[in-house]
């Protein structure tokens, strides 16, 4: 047995025989994988390999044609992102899902506002939200952006930090990220990676899509490789090299897999 270990003991999430077609196009074909608890797992593959489709199925945006998702040992095919969120699966969207004209605290509480008074009125408890946001984000972020500032006045990296820390702030267990640093500079990428490590330190499990292999090797504990809608294999990051992952992504890996 090499470092190829598709069986993960007590995984947080198991994907079993997922199939998804878009019309005649096969997006995912018999995909099965496991996400280890408390680790940062990378999901890599070329364009069209099915990474984003898989993430959308896990987060409840898409429903699979067949197959199932198991979360914490229980069958969990989510009909909507809201259902997945209730179970503790948060998604950091590529567009960050931030409302720019609202302050940081309002974005952190977006869709989960604290209210008081009669139920039909839902009067906002702005002071409570404003004063608790800093502590919520401080668990994952060393330099919390000013919580009263509108998101439009933050830098690109600070926005990303807010979006990611928000995902962790709500008692979630699994965080899905699709290209979290695609548009960022070096320093900002570093800040975002620090937040991802902060989430891991708090015991959260993270599944991250990235095209940047350097980054995948910097931050992940394990890597799943997809190609043309199928799973090629899993590698523990510490026991593989970028060359191997590249060959798995491009297809040269079929050789190395049979030989090992």
């Amino acid at each position, binding site marked *: 047995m090499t470092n190829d270990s598709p069986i993960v003991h007590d995984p947080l999430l198991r994907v079993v025989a997922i199939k998804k077609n878009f019309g005649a196009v096969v997006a995912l074909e018999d995909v099965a994988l496991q996400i280890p608890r408390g680790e940062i797992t990378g999901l890599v593959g070329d364009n069209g390999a099915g990474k984003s489709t898989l993430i959308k199925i896990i987060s409840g945006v898409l429903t699979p044609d067949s197959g199932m998702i198991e979360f914490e040992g229980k069958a969990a095919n989510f009909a909507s*992102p*809201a259902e997945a*969120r209730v179970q503790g699966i948060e*998604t950091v*969207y590529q*567009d*960050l*899902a*931030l*409302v*720019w*004209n*609202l302050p940081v605290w*309002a974005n952190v509480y*977006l*869709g*989960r*506002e604290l*209210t008081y008074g009669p139920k039909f*009125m*839902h*009067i*906002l408890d702005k002071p409570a939200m404003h004063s608790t946001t800093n502590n919520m984000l401080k668990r994952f972020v060393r330099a919390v952006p000013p919580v009263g500032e509108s998101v439009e006045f933050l830098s690109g990296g600070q926005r990303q930090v807010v979006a990611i820390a928000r995902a962790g702030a709500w008692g979630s267990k699994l965080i899905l990220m699709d290209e979290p640093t695609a548009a960022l500079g070096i320093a900002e990428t570093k800040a975002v990676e620090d937040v991802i490590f902060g989430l891991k330190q708090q015991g959260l499990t993270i599944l991250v899509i990235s095209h940047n292999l350097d980054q995948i090797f910097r931050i992940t504990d394990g890597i799943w490789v997809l190609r043309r809608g199928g799973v090629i294999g899993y590698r523990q990051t510490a026991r593989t090299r970028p060359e191997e992952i590249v060959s798995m992504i491009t297809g040269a890996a079929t050789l190395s897999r049979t030989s090992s």
Partner: protein
Amino acid sequence: MTAAGRWTPLFVLAGRHGVLIVFVLLVAVMFVSKSTFGTYQNLVNVLQQNSVIGIIACGMTFAIILGGFDLSVGSVTALASVVGATLMIDIGTFGIPAGILGAVVSCLIVGATNGWLIAYLGVNPFVATLGTMTVVRGLLYVATNASPRFGVPYSFTNVGLGYLLGVPIPAILFLLVALLLGFVLHRTRFGHYVYAVGGNALASAEMGIDAARVRFAVYVLVSACASVSGIILIGQTASATPQAALGYELTAIAAVIVGGASLGGGRGRMAGTIVGVFLLGVVANGLNLFGVSPFWQPVATGLILIAAVAFDGYSKRGGFASV
């Protein structure tokens, strides 16, 4: 400290409260230059004349912060006036409550139609409300043969022309609507969601906000405001007038924009709208007091609108140059 540095706080102040400052200066100038301006009768006139448009503008503030607008409000106001007054004229006893109820219900139907088209069918707000604006006005002309009907019970003119403690009843209604909707917009979760959906509808939906429901509710709310204005118009004219409130939609939108809201959505305040309404109202009143032809009034409104938007862009970018 440089000169620019010393003046920066003033620019910030002007940028944040520009309309209010202009309004206060305007009122001060009017007080000094025209003795008739400050009389009780004239101030009451200003309140009386701007309450109908003000109530519509309160509702329009929601639609504009949401990133849309509602062109049908003028027609809907006329609808309330025609339906309400006709019921009051034709039904003997209980004609007045029946008229009020009929006016509100008919307006809510139009509002729900707007909301359904925009929120659930994805029709552009301009197209949807232009459509209902035209259809409703056309139906009113068909139903009334384009001529007003008189005979509303005299007692009801109190709503349009009466006073309570020396304040015109329409102004009191305007104040109540403004306070209520200001509270809803700035203090409740619903108002918060209007800002969120107006700022970024996709992000709001991704975070679990039912953006379509918020949109639907806002367009119903705008029509509800128009129905209140229509009922006041019945009290002011004692008649069912199918030509009522022509062009009010554009005046209301102008007042909201002058008050600092942005057509791009996500920005605006209820207090700004109130100042916007009275800024346009005092200018109209001033032109009138100085004996300028009323035909100049739209010219003034348009110029103020352009100046307000240009200044807003100037203070945001720090210069007039395009970005």
